[in-house]
């Protein structure tokens, strides 16, 4: 059919993210907009242009707090961007951050904007507790009672179970069409590809070790310190366990399919707060402000699949993307596949190496190929760092751009699975200038 080429090139100029902060059972120190402002102002402060020169802000966020409607606009204003600058918010579940970048890419490609701030943010620790239906109806009855006898009548209808809260985070992480939570979809993939508990734990251990290495080798220049009003400050991702072992991971109980499952809190991504923002620019903007270039965004692809194996989304999206450019597995120097669950990333790797799977599901005549694990998530992933759902998609793109630079490599793919049965993939290229 038709080819999807873009009209103008789009460059990643710079990016910053907050340390990813593990939710510790109570609301964390930052709201979603606080996180985005914290990363964004550090990013903007080092630019040669003023925040008012930005044309647009697009943010991905799955669960902004009730007072953060259109959080993209809120963050734009808090960062000191112009009041006349438009800003908006996107939501594609776990890929919201990547979706925001895709939208910015499109706006720059078609010539609508030259300089766009895009990324994602999530404060999962602040996901609200909601009243259940019984409570809502009872309250409505109270407010509707106009006189004291009516109020008293309503009052005695109260039942203690009305006080049981609805945990919005759990709702958000459950697929309503199939009534499975995300961990259960990972169990299905593990079953399908025969992935053992040991394989998952080994993958998790590697994720922690790689992340710990990246931190101790100071290889994460995009991480900007965050400061809380309490006087606390955060300079690194605090979910990374520098000292974890297979033994420790082995002691954890299955979390989603209780008793007989294999997916544990240890081999799943953590519930985490964080934000990641990228500055995207057209060639014109790069030249106008003499900006350094980190990478070029070549293209983006989205794919849909059976919601009950949503974790295989990256296999679908990335192969479709590469097919379009006639690229093969070996043409890609580095991969980022977001680690929602160890089982799901391993599932993707298995699927791409499986002739049958690739024939039946990806329209190929044989397996796509065997992934070199030393080129996948080289600085760790969501299992170690956490997965603030709105931010992860932006984080992996930014990390990948830095990894390509660091290794003098050429091409990379960042891909992410999406609750509800989708996958997203972004192809980027290491360039240092916009050419002539």
């Amino acid at each position, binding site marked *: 059919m038709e080819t999807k080429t873009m009209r103008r090139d789009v460059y990643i100029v710079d990016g910053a993210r907050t340390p990813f902060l593990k939710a510790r059972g109570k609301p964390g120190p930052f709201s979603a907009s606080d996180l985005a*402002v914290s990363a964004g*102002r550090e990013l903007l*402060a080092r630019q040669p242009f003023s925040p008012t020169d930005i044309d647009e802000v697009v943010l991905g966020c799955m669960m902004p707090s009730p007072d953060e409607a259109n959080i993209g606009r809120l963050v734009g204003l808090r960062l000191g961007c112009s009041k006349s600058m438009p800003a908006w918010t996107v939501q594609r579940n776990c890929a919201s951050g990547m979706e925001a970048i895709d939208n910015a890419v499109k706006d720059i490609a078609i010539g609508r904007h030259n300089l766009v701030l895009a990324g994602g943010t999530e404060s999962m620790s602040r996901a609200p507790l909601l009243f259940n239906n019984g409570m809502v109806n009872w309250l409505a009855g109270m407010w509707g009672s106009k006189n004291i006898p009516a109020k008293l009548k309503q009052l005695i209808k109260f039942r203690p179970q009305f006080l049981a809260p609805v945990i919005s985070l759990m709702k958000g992480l459950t697929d309503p069409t199939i009534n499975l939570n995300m961990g259960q979809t990972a169990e299905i993939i593990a079953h399908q590809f025969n992935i053992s508990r040991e394989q998952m734990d080994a993958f998790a251990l590697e994720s922690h070790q790689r992340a710990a290495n990246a931190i101790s080798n100071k290889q994460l220049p995009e991480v900007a310190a965050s*400061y*809380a*009003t*309490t006087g606390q*400050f955060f300079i690194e991702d605090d979910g990374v366990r520098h000292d974890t072992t297979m033994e420790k991971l082995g002691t954890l109980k299955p979390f989603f399919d209780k008793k007989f499952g294999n997916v544990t809190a240890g081999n799943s991504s953590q519930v985490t707060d964080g934000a990641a923002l990228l500055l995207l620019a057209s060639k014109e903007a790069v030249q106008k402000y003499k900006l350094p270039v980190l990478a070029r965004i070549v293209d983006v692809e989205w794919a849909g699949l059976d919601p009950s194996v949503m974790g295989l989304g990256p296999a679908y999206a990335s192969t479709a993307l590469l097919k379009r450019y006639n690229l093969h597995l070996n043409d890609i120097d580095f991969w980022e596949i977001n680690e929602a669950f160890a089982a799901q990333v391993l599932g993707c790797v298995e699927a791409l190496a499986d002739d049958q799977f690739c024939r039946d599901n990806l329209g190929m005549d044989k397996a796509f190929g065997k992934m070199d694990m030393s080129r996948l998530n080289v600085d760790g992933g969501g299992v170690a760092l956490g997965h603030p759902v709105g931010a992860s998609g932006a984080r992996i793109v930014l990390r990948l751009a830095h990894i390509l630079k660091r290794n003098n490599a050429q091409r990379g793919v960042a891909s992410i699975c999406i609750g509800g049965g989708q996958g997203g993939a972004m192809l980027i290229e290491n360039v240092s200038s916009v050419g002539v």
Partner: protein
Amino acid sequence: MQTYKNWRLETDNDGILWVYFDKQDASVNTLNPETMEEFSSIVDSLANDTQHKGVIIASGKKNGFIAGADISQFNKFKDVADATAMLRKGQDIFEKLENLKMPTVAMIEGFCVGGGLELVLPCRYRVVEDGPKTRLGLPEVTLGIHPGWGGTVRLPRLIGALNGMDLVLSGRTVSGKAAAKMGFVDAAVPKRHLVRAAKQYILSKPARHKASWFQELTNSKFARKFLAKMMRKKLRAKINPAHYPAPFQALDNWEEFGVDGEMPYEQEARTCGKLFFSETSRNLVRCFFLQERLKGLAKESQFSPKHIHVVGAGTMGGDIAAWCALKGMTVTLQDREPKLIAPAIKRAYNLFKEKLKEPHLIQQAMDRLMPDVSGQGIARADVIIEAIYEDLAAKQALFKSVESKAKPTAILATNTSSIPLDDINSVLDRPERLVGIHFFNPVAKMQLVEVVKGDRTADDVAAKALSFTRKIDRLPLPVKSSPGFLVNRILMPYLLEAVNMLDEGIPAPVIDKAMVEFGMPMGPIALGDAVGLDVCLSVAKYLGKYLNIPVPQRLITMVEQGKLGRKSGEGFYKYKNGKQIKPDDVSTDKSLEDISDRLVLRMLDEAFACLREGVVADGDLLDAGMIYGTGFAPFRGGPIHYAKTKGIHDLYQQYTRQKQLRGEKVDETRTWEMLMETN
């Protein structure tokens, strides 16, 4: 319709008369004999007016409603009788206003204080703009008098004594919303509804606001006895009636005469008239004009900085950054590591919470204050303030790197309290860009900022620094770059003298008590503990060398033992959770007056030395510096003014005699006499 010089009268389509106060040749409305005279004749004409449905009094100025009585008139009265007569006349005018048959509305935008509030209290209704600039109150006590145009009577009558007398006695001002809640304003509305609200009151004529039965009860004879006792106790805990008699007088008046009938007004005018001639009032009015003079110093420059970069996030640097952000500046705060900045962010948050209250305003201020470890703000800042530790080489290195990155129009400022500017700027390509902007601790409380000019500092850079200081609502004092500048230079010998007195066996609480009785906000020993004895020691060493004052051994020993004052839990006093543990009562054979005399004379000796060396331009500026930089007893008008009042010659004789008695040498070159003519 008759025309007036200071008042503009207009009739609108609804038949309402608008009386705009628009004082001739002034940017702000104040009440003086001429404007009152005209207002009187307007009120007279309204008494027989049948044409209009009502009258709305409003301001013709862009800025504010009425700032009160014209303070420059305060010292123009011939005698107490003259002052009292003026007050009675004003009371008469306001009484006529109160008795008008037609409805009267005061429509207030911005400040409405002192005489301004007394003018609107007799109106039947008051509507105010609910905005950040609206402030209402009776701040007369801050000028050493109490309200004299009926304010001490009408306010407690209208809203009860608890809030009413509190406003009179404290002199504090409140927002429009708070005033509406208390009841002396009928409605606080956004600007878009203000005119409609004002007209609505005329057209619908609702019942006028009345005190609740409980509020009314607070003014009964029985309640007054009881409440006055409580209020007096509360007042005494804060201020000394010998120093600040006005609020005590207002309280006595209320207790004795209440709020009904003619007597309270007569009494109010009588005692207020007397207070005009008190030493305290004279000196507080003097302070007011000193403050105006400092404010005026900033008017020469059009400099309007937006972005401030502060290097050094310690107590001073962090608090300077927070204060600038509070006042609307974009601020970047730099230090070597996040952990050094984080405590400053917490303090800033607490400051914003206290001052701004509303969450969205607090968030805006927090967003304006950015921690900046990598120093990105330098290239964008209009003012760069260095507040790192006192080390010449470190400061030089810092400014050298800052100079290469900063905008060419930015001014470079150091908050140093001891290092001469011309030592620091010697490493700069353009040394004329460096100026001293010296804040005092705590930044949020001390209004004074010394603006220090080195020999090489350019005039326009110094002017910009003055202007910046005003933009963040502090009082700038231009000083010469000499050791200790003005305030620390005068303070340090005074503190060291106090330490010497400890060595002579006078107990610390006695020394402190003597100076508090003199009128200082805290005694010298407690002050040393608050500042930190390590800081005192380093300043003492440095200044002592220059001023030839030996550093007391006791101070050195205490610092060596880790007794650093309040922050370490022990200094001259002991502290628990930052609060002083009350020392045991001690007695001494020395009179408090002898103690304070000796300390004040030591302070004066240094003050005169500063004048002689031209550290500040004149004695008034010196007084202003000591009042707003150290809290030197404002009711005494400043050290130089105090010396003049007591007689410079006599005080000097006393000072040298004391020194000789103690066997100390008198330095003949440090005579005060030569200053008697010039100052």
